[in-house]
């Protein structure tokens, strides 16, 4: 036997199975490229040195793991599909006298070919594309683009190790299957008896409840904090619901349709209902996978895109004023010193503060229980939803800013709530019972609680004595040193970003020295790191979105092809029994359309129901522009649907080529 027999046979095998192997190899190349680029970016030294670059690299690093795990599962899955299709071929080899070890040898050589082609082309493509993607990333991050072209050694090694591992694993799995099977079984291939699926009502009920519960959580969750806690639980419920309803629910619906004789025995429904039943039995899990993947892509891309686009909004929400100073004022110091320092800095730059906002306050944190607030940290319950922040503000400052002339008695307060209204008549906190004199419907713009996700109360008290006393009482209770009250000062500047930044830095040095523990913020100062984080997320969202879309496409393609082979025989029979070509085509089209677009439609519904909870999550990230998010979601869905339809068009062609039969 010629030395070249096995390599030749392996090559012919790949060529013969090009229809299924080509997409597989393309996917391998695609994943290799993506993984290389991701590792390249996350290891890139140039990027690491830029401001905010390390944050981006942390995000990208996460991306590397996701891609690695995903590629492994995904390539493994598609390869097992390929092998299922080829079992008959192996059976034939076996019967023609090739021993299993010979088949194993052919398979090993085939895998080697695939590995060499994928890694070669993938790495080449990855190296060429990495520069482009790097520039795109820097553009997204608003970073300057450096010159030069590098090939990353660590990335190369990482790719080689990961994919060598994956290919080896797929080969071993195939060999295991071949080894276990008998030749006759191999010849029979995938065609084992197909029983009519049973209706599993329990699963239907479970799925409906689970899905309903998931949707309910999304629709009813009010506070962002609860959203954060409940989101993953809701996602899990929806996933369970999706699987149950795709597998059991679809069958149940089809059976009900079949029971309706008037509906069922019509040309258009007859073959479709029966065909769908069979299809759903075979494909329900795959379709549920596609649905969940599509939902994930849509959520990921739409949120990251809207965060990126809405970044200016976010910055403005998080940092409403150009300069924001929040300073603890200890007992022996006063706020005048601080005001003077700021004035000096502004004078030095020849600028004037606009829309100045300043007031004194103290913050308390505690669990609200009716009209009592427990501030003792050791007693705070686990239920984070009852955690409240209380901002105590002296009447003097309130009257000044709200332009009112209210007067208060010693233990009288005004109260304003940022979320649910405070219903009680008194408020007991730190052994002091305060009487609510008025519940306020609005409060002056205060810029407190910008990051906080729990509900907060603004409590106006008689004077600074009360504020100081309560702040001290809290420090004492928690065993902290007395920190005094705080002072907030914020203003806008009519200047360009560079000047604002200079003012910000000068204030930082001046105030930071005199008042340790001050928080001095400016949107200009954090802009870069904001760009880094949101830009990084945006990039990752798009990148992973592309990967997931590629996976979805491939799954769809393989579904189509394998269904084509299964359907071929059935449609031949239908034509023999007297169905015209057009009728067969029509029937195929409607079934394929349903199978294809069911996951997309389901994903759309998921997204629609997830919308409320995701807007709350985005609020945590300071994105409150719901309109923007709605547009981004709609846009993402549209793009995805277009892409999906395109793939449908292409794979449907392959499908028809398989099913159509030539004696006509």
């Amino acid at each position: 036997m010629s030395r070249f027999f096995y390599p030749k046979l392996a090559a012919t095998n790949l060529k013969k199975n090009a229809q299924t192997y080509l997409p597989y190899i393309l996917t391998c190349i695609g994943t290799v490229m993506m993984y290389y680029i991701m590792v390249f970016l996350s290891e890139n030294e140039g990027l690491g040195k830029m401001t905010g670059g390390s944050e981006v690299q942390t995000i990208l690093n996460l991306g590397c793991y996701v891609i690695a795990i995903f590629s492994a599962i995904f390539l493994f899955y598609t390869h097992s599909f390929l092998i299922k299709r080829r079992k008959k071929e192996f059976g034939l080899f076996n019967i023609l006298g090739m021993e299993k070890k010979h088949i194993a040898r052919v398979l090993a050589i085939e895998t080697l070919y695939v590995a060499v082609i994928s890694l070669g082309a993938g790495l080449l493509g990855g190296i060429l594309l990495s520069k482009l993607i790097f520039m795109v990333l820097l553009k997204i991050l608003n970073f300057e683009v450096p010159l030069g072209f590098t090939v990353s050694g660590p990335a190369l090694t990482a790719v080689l190790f990961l994919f060598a591992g994956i290919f080896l694993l797929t080969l071993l799995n195939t060999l295991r299957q071949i080894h276990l099977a008998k030749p006759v079984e191999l010849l029979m291939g995938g065609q084992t008896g197909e029983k009519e699926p049973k209706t599993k009502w329990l699963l239907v009920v479970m799925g409906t409840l689970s899905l309903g519960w998931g949707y309910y959580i999304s629709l009813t969750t009010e506070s962002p904090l609860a959203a954060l806690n409940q989101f993953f639980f809701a996602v899990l419920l929806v996933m369970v619901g999706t699987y149950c309803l795709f597998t059991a629910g679809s069958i149940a619906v089809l059976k009900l349709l079949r029971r309706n004789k008037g509906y069922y025995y019509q040309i258009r429904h007859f073959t479709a209902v029966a065909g769908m039943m069979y299809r759903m039995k075979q494909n329900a899990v795959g379709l549920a996978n596609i649905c969940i993947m599509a939902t994930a892509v849509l959520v990921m891309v739409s949120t990251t895109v809207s965060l990126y686009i809405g970044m200016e909004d976010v910055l403005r929400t998080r940092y409403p004023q150009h300069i924001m100073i929040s300073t603890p004022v200890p007992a022996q110091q006063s706020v005048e010193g601080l005001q003077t320092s700021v004035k000096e800095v502004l004078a030095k730059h020849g600028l004037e503060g606009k829309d100045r906002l300043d007031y004194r306050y103290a913050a308390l944190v505690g669990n609200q229980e009716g009209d009592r607030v427990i501030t003792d940290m050791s007693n705070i319950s686990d239920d984070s939803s009852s955690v409240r922040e209380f901002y105590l503000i002296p009447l003097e400052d309130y009257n000044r800013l709200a332009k009112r002339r209210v007067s208060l008695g010693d233990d009288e307060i005004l109260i304003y709530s940022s979320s649910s209204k405070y219903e009680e008549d008194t408020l007991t906190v730190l052994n002091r019972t305060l009487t609510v004199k008025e519940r306020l419907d609005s409060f002056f713009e205060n810029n407190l609680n910008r990051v906080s996700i729990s509900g907060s109360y603004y409590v106006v008290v008689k004077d600074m004595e009360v504020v100081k006393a309560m702040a001290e009482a809290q420090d004492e209770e928690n065993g902290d040193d007395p920190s005094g009250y705080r002072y907030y000062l914020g203003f806008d500047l009519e200047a360009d970003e560079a000047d604002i930044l200079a003012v910000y830095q000068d204030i930082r040095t001046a105030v930071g020295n005199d008042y340790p523990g001050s928080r001095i913020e400016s949107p200009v100062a954090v802009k870069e790191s904001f760009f880094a984080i949101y830009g990084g997320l945006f990039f990752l969202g798009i990148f992973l979105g592309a990967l997931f879309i590629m996976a979805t496409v491939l799954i769809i393609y393989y579904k189509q092809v394998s269904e084509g082979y299964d359907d071929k025989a059935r449609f031949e029979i239908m034509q023999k029994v007297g169905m015209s070509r057009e009728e067969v085509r029509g029937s195929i089209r409607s079934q394929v359309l349903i199978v294809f677009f069911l996951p997309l439609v389901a994903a759309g519904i998921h997204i629609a129901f997830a919308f409320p909870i995701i807007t709350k999550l985005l609020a945590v990230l300071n994105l409150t522009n719901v309109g923007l998010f709605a547009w981004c979601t709609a846009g993402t869905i549209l793009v995805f649907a277009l892409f999906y339809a395109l793939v449908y068009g292409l794979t449907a062609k392959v499908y028809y080529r398989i099913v159509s039969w030539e004696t006509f």
Partner: protein
Amino acid sequence: MTILEVNNLKKVYTTRFGGSPVQALANVSFSVEEGEYAAIMGESGSGKTTLLNILASLDKPTSGEVLLKGKGLSTIKEKEISAFRRENLGFVFQDFNLLDTFSLQDNIFLPLVLSGKSYEEMSRRLEPIARKLGIGDILAKYPYEVSGGQKQRCAVARALITKPQLILADEPTGSLDSQSAEGLLRLFKEINLEGQTLLMVTHSVKAASHAKRVLFIKDGEVFHQLYKANMSDEAMYQKISDTLTTMATGGGHHE
């Protein structure tokens, strides 16, 4: 009255890559009268299946014509051919060709559903047929749950339910055990006695011996034919065997 008339049928297959053309049918002519039960015999490769495909309008002849009740199959438009086939022809295949996705009853209903009949009419038509074929109690089952003989009887029911002019059977006993085969042939005889015209292609001598007339095809031509008249099945069997021997050992044409 003549139901089927086949005149000078010729079929040549040309392979796609310009290989030498293969002649499946050279010159076939015969006719089938109403109420007849005819069998066509021939070895593998003699052109039986090609002939049947052309009769079933699944394939087109290179030249020659097929007339069903005086109407040329080639004159029927492509669009109408399926409906024509559905309404005028019934099929029984060697491998049953039942769809696994349908219950046996739905398999039988399939041609009627395609013609847009109501459920009530379909069940009305099925009822006597099911009784005659003895499949009444398995109708709710699926093809993979019943035996080959039962499957073939359902396939016969599917062919009968449209009340076709002609039933074409392609090796109907080919996948059956001897007992089921015997049952099926008895059934064919019965429905023929009720007036149904049958044309069966087979290479089973046993099956052919049940027919009223046997046509022998060799090398794409009708080589010989036998009439049963009032011969017994056994005598017919003997006669068919003799003819086949003569054909195999290379005897010339004789009427």
